[in-house]
């Protein structure tokens, strides 16, 4: 073993490098600046057969090895980190689950066009309450006849909304943690499948990242990937391989910055010689090169193990963790060598500096990589005391009434107004609509659901009749610029601590919700019934803001100018009765012991999250030894 790539690998590298230099490099600055996706580049890569590098030719792939794929991501990233991740997310995340776990039909229908590059793939696992810990997944899939009905949403999804094929993870058996998650193939364009914000990112700005929203999306039964409950396994296996892609991306970004730094350090003359030959810089360059070589060997070795079908989970985690950690060091040193010049927009090292950061975060944070590596060495951590199955995450805004009105739009508006008046809101008084958010007693806020700028008139009209100030979500102020930046409400913006908050066309990103958690009453108006805002509101109307806002404005209009509001008095938050935990409960006929799904039976080796139904038949009551069948289900009054 020479620890060297083959000639074929190097020829392939040369091809990709030439492509990246010719096709990507000239537009890289523009893509970064304009946050735009390189559609033409991706098309050309597809034509070259590079979107299915590691997949068999019979499924439209190039039939090459994992190392070739790693080299391709590295070489693209060397020029542009964003373009590198487009390939990585498509190959490792969007296509791999189908290649590894798909049926023959699924491979023909979905893998083939992905590998040929006719379609782009993506992978949806992360949610607001499920990142490193997939057990918090809240998207659900309920089997109804021949379809699963998918509801919920995903955030930070690379290649969305460009991609056509999505691997989506959803809960099919609730409340049992990761064992209840299943994987599905979901196509763009299906009814109820929409995209939320395209994120405005620090780096990799040529890649597209968006939110996925599922509203009663009908997923044919045959699009279940693997079996029900295998989702977590599929996700973890996919991420094992995905790490090779991200490691290669980190390596490529760092390699590019390194090369630029070396070149610049030889050109830049200070104290009579190129700065490269100042020992402080030459040592820096030596260290950078050493780190890159280490990272490269880790990555290539993991890719070879994968290709040889040997265990590679730990090695790919080491490669990802190390390559991305040193990538940050290398791009930092590279920028330092450039000095002030490197700090300017348009400089590759400046872009690399920003692009590199994501690689320590996504596809498993480097903290999680260390968890993976340590678990391979140390085995499973000893069981901790107490239950680990989480109850559904508490709403970000605390306990709320969550009353959704029913009936026609007018009826819903009338019920809302009645409820608000019942709570003690006086709509004969009001505050100036330009009152600073932090001082306002009431705020009417617009989200992206408001649409065109002209529609902001509806928000202002409602604010006047509701006696409120005008606010907005962050994108409305920052991206759409409908309002000054000091009027957006959120954790990072202005915090609303007054009494009444109207969220109009706001979906409820967690940073927004955190900014309104002290509001006494939250009203949500949104056409997406699964929008998180409804779980965080006291009153909700599912409907189009363009229809609801004028009705609500009219209903609050008392025909007179609002009297100046008295000084703000904080009203009482509504009492919200505690809800029952979601598990069926069972009690022992031999002693009265209650079996808790969320605790399991540690002494009987029953993992937390195991439902009574899932307990083995031979399981015995831990207190009195009665058999499983001697338990009775706790009945409610209705049951009787």
């Amino acid at each position, binding site marked *: 073993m020479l620890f060297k790539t083959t000639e074929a690998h190097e020829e392939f590298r040369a091809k990709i490098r030439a492509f990246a230099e010719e096709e990507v490099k000239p537009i890289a600055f523009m893509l970064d600046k304009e946050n735009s996706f390189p559609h033409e580049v991706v098309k050309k890569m597809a034509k070259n057969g590079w979107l299915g590098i590691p997949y068999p030719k019979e499924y439209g792939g190039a039939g090459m090895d994992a190392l070739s794929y790693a080299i391709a991501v590295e070489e693209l990233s060397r020029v542009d980190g964003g373009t590198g991740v487009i390939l990585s997310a498509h190959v490792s995340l969007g296509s791999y689950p189908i290649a590894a776990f798909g049926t023959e039909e699924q491979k023909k229908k979905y893998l083939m066009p992905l590998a040929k590059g006719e379609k782009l793939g993506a992978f949806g696992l992360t949610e607001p309450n499920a990142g490193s810990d997939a057990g918090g997944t809240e998207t659900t899939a309920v089997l109804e006849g021949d379809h699963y009905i998918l509801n919920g949403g995903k955030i930070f999804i690379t290649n969305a909304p460009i991609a056509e094929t999505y691997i989506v993870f959803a809960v099919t058996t609730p409340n049992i943690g990761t064992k209840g998650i299943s994987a599905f193939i979901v196509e763009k364009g299906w009814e109820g499948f929409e995209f939320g914000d395209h994120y405005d990112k620090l780096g990799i700005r040529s890649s597209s990242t968006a939110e996925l929203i599922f509203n009663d999306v009908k997923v044919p039964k045959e699009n279940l990937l693997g079996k029900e409950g295998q989702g977590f396994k599929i996700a973890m296996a996919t991420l094992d391989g995905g790490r090779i892609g991200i490691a290669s991306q980190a390596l490529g970004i760092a390699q590019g910055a390194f090369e630029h730094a070396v070149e610049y350090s030889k050109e830049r003359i200070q104290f009579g010689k190129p700065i490269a030959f100042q020992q402080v810089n030459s040592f820096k360059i030596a260290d950078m090169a050493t780190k890159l070589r280490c990272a490269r060997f880790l990555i290539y070795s993991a890719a070879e193990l994968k290709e040889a079908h040997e265990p590679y989970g730990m090695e790919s985690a080491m490669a990802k963790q190390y390559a991305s950690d040193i990538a940050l060091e290398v791009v930092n040193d590279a920028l330092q060598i450039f000095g002030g010049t490197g700090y300017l927009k348009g400089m590759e090292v400046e872009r690399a500096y920003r692009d590199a950061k994501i690689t320590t975060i996504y596809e498993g944070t480097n903290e999680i990589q260390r968890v993976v590596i340590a678990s391979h060495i140390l085995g499973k951590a000893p069981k901790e005391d107490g239950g680990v199955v989480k109850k559904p995450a508490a709403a970000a805004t605390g306990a709320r009434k969550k009353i959704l009105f029913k009936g026609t739009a007018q009826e819903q508006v009338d019920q809302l107004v009645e409820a608000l008046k019942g709570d003690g809101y006086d709509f004969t008084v009001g505050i100036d609509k330009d009152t600073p958010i932090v001082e306002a007693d009431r705020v009417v806020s617009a989200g992206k659901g408001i649409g065109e700028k002209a529609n902001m008139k509806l928000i202002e009209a409602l604010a006047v009749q509701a006696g409120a100030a005008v606010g907005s979500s962050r994108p409305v102020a920052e991206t759409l610029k409908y309002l000054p930046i000091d009027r957006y409400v959120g954790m990072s913006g202005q915090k609303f601590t007054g009494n009444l908050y109207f969220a109009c066309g706001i979906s409820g990103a967690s940073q927004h919700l955190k900014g309104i958690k002290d509001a006494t009453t939250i009203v949500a108006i949104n056409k997406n019934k699964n929008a998180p805002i409804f779980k965080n509101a006291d009153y909700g109307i599912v409907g189009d803001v363009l229809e609801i806002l004028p009705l609500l404005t009219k209903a609050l209009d008392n025909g007179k100018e609002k009297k100046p509001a008295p000084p703000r008095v904080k009203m*009482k*938050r509504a*009492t*919200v*009765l*505690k*809800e*029952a*935990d979601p598990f069926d*409960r069972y*009690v*022992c*006929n*031999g*002693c*009265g012991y209650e079996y808790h799904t969320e605790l399991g039976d540690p002494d009987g080796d029953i993992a937390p999250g195991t439902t009574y139904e899932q307990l083995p038949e031979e399981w015995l009551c831990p207190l*009195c030894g009665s058999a499983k069948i*001697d338990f*009775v289900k*706790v*009945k*409610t*009054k209705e*049951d*009787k």
Partner: protein
Amino acid sequence: MHCVRKVTDDLYWVGANEKRLHLFENIHPIEDGVSYNSYLLLDEKTVLFDTADWAVGRQFIENVEYVLDGRKLDYMVINHMEPDHCASMEEILLRYPEVTVVSTEKAYMLMQQFGFSVTDNFHQVQEGDTMSFGKHNVVFVEAPMVHWPEAMVTFDTTNGVLFSADAFGSFKSLDGVLFADEVNFDRDWLDEARRYYTNIVGKYGPHVMDLLGKAATIDIKMLCPLHGPVWRKDLGYILDKYVHWATYEPEEKGVLIAYASMYGNTESAAQILAAKLHEKGMHNLRMYDVSKTHQSYLIGEAFKYSHMALLAPTYNLNLFPPMESFMLDMQKLNLQKRVVGVVENGSWAPQSGVVMKEILDSMKQMTVLNEEVSVTSSVSKAVYDELDSLADSIIDSMKQDYKY
């Protein structure tokens, strides 16, 4: 001398009243005593349903002998093996050596553990088994964990009498009464029936509901419990109470104010809160000092009312012990679905509120009102206003109901 009453044709009450015992189960005060009910059926065979506590053994034996009037005893059906009912078993076995004991497998095990001489003379029955004593046919229905595992109830299909063991029982001695319709039950007995049920069977609501489910399938004419009066009229009244208690649904919208006070300052807060509640129109409330009230009474009231206000001082950086004891008792008895106002007192590091909320949080669906009040030593103007606000919140939250 015997003291018996006829229940219905062929059936006699042969139990006895206990007036001298202070503490039932050596824990619950019984100011008004308790009865140990036993029933004797005279058919072609003679059948005794349960016995009595040893403390009233002499009266019980005299009653049995009087009703048997020289006949031998053929069967002794044991529905419940707790010693307040079975302690006199041994005496019956000695006096009527040919008697056959009828009960469940688990009861047999308990008979051995308690040391009764039951061996070959045992007839084991299980759910759905029947026996005929001549005119009267009975079916046995298991009632596990109401409130012991061996418990069963026996239904006489001939006359619709259900021998219901501890279910539908009550504290208070009968003092000549046999039927619930001979007294003003709602006025004079309900509180003690509730205190009996909630403290003794309260935890086992799900098992009671299971038994009530089975009972719904048979045509019951009369309930013969092991304590308290026999029910032959308005069975729906007591069944409805049981459904409330077993599903932890309060009987009434109202407030139990339970306070602890070392020097009268927390009591002052309780008085202010009570006054505010009355002032605002909420008159259904009861107020108790937890240090002076036996917690079995507090438990009964906690099951009765929809709301609770708990006020307690901090003690050793923790909760004042009598309040803690009451709250842990509620937790152990599975009380759930109540709305609670929490008022703490503390002079330098108030902690009682935190501990109270922790205990409430460990219970099922106990809602703590947002208006938490923290008294520092004595009620200040600000605390006075907060108590007013808490009263508003208690009344306002009464508009909502849990699902039971």
